[in-house]
């Protein structure tokens, strides 16, 4: 099973609040791969990318570096789609 990961930076001004967290989970659920999102720093946390609650617990503010990781047969496509959400700032500012 391939594992693919990509480092991204939260760029929308409101950070990873509930709406983008749900959008992320909706997209992650379109793939078979297991998806995790990890935050380093003083309060490291690894969230299940398919759990809205865990994604909100990341409390990732604007400028926070995160790592998206996918494990599974569609890992490459999953990481690409999920990283794109951050690149598009979840449709926000």
């Amino acid at each position: 099973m391939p594992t693919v990961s990509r480092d991204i930076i939260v760029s929308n001004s409101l950070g990873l609040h509930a709406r983008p967290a749900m959008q992320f989970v909706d997209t992650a659920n379109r793939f078979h791969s297991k998806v995790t999102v990890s935050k380093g720093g003083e309060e490291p946390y690894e969230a299940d990318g398919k759990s809205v609650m865990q994604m909100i617990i990341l409390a990732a503010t604007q400028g926070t570096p995160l790592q998206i990781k996918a494990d599974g047969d569609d890992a490459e496509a999953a990481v690409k789609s999920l990283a794109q959400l951050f690149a598009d700032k979840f449709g926000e500012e």
Partner: protein
Amino acid sequence: MKLKEFIVTEAIVPELSATSRDEALRELVLSLSSAGALPDAAVDGIVAALIAREKDGSTGFGKGVAVPHVKHAAVRKMAGTIGRAPTGIDFTALDHQPVFTIVLLLSPENQPQQHLQAMNVVFSNLQKDMFRRFLRQSTSRATIIELLDEADQGK
């Protein structure tokens, strides 16, 4: 951040009389204004904003809890409260189950970091089965406050 830094304990409603989502939101916002955490004149606007937010996407994230929240210009200081609905309320939750515990959070505009930190502490606790179960079983304001104290100490 601790729960009791933003949960207005006098505004906790151990047994909501509301039976619908919109009534429950109003009851909790009214409770915050009665406790002096919000100007009375802001109640209608905030309730409308919370309802609009729910229609945009339910904050019933599953496991019997909902965390309605909104940023609003009339909110000067972040304020939250908790309501228990012993018979369950339909929040069109993600898991299609009724909601028994509501944690409502109101934030001022332009403080996204503080809002994310508050959501972090709320969900870190709601993830814990014991916390959710005790909250659901706490029938008095005093018991709920005790539970919040314990959660804040464990953090």
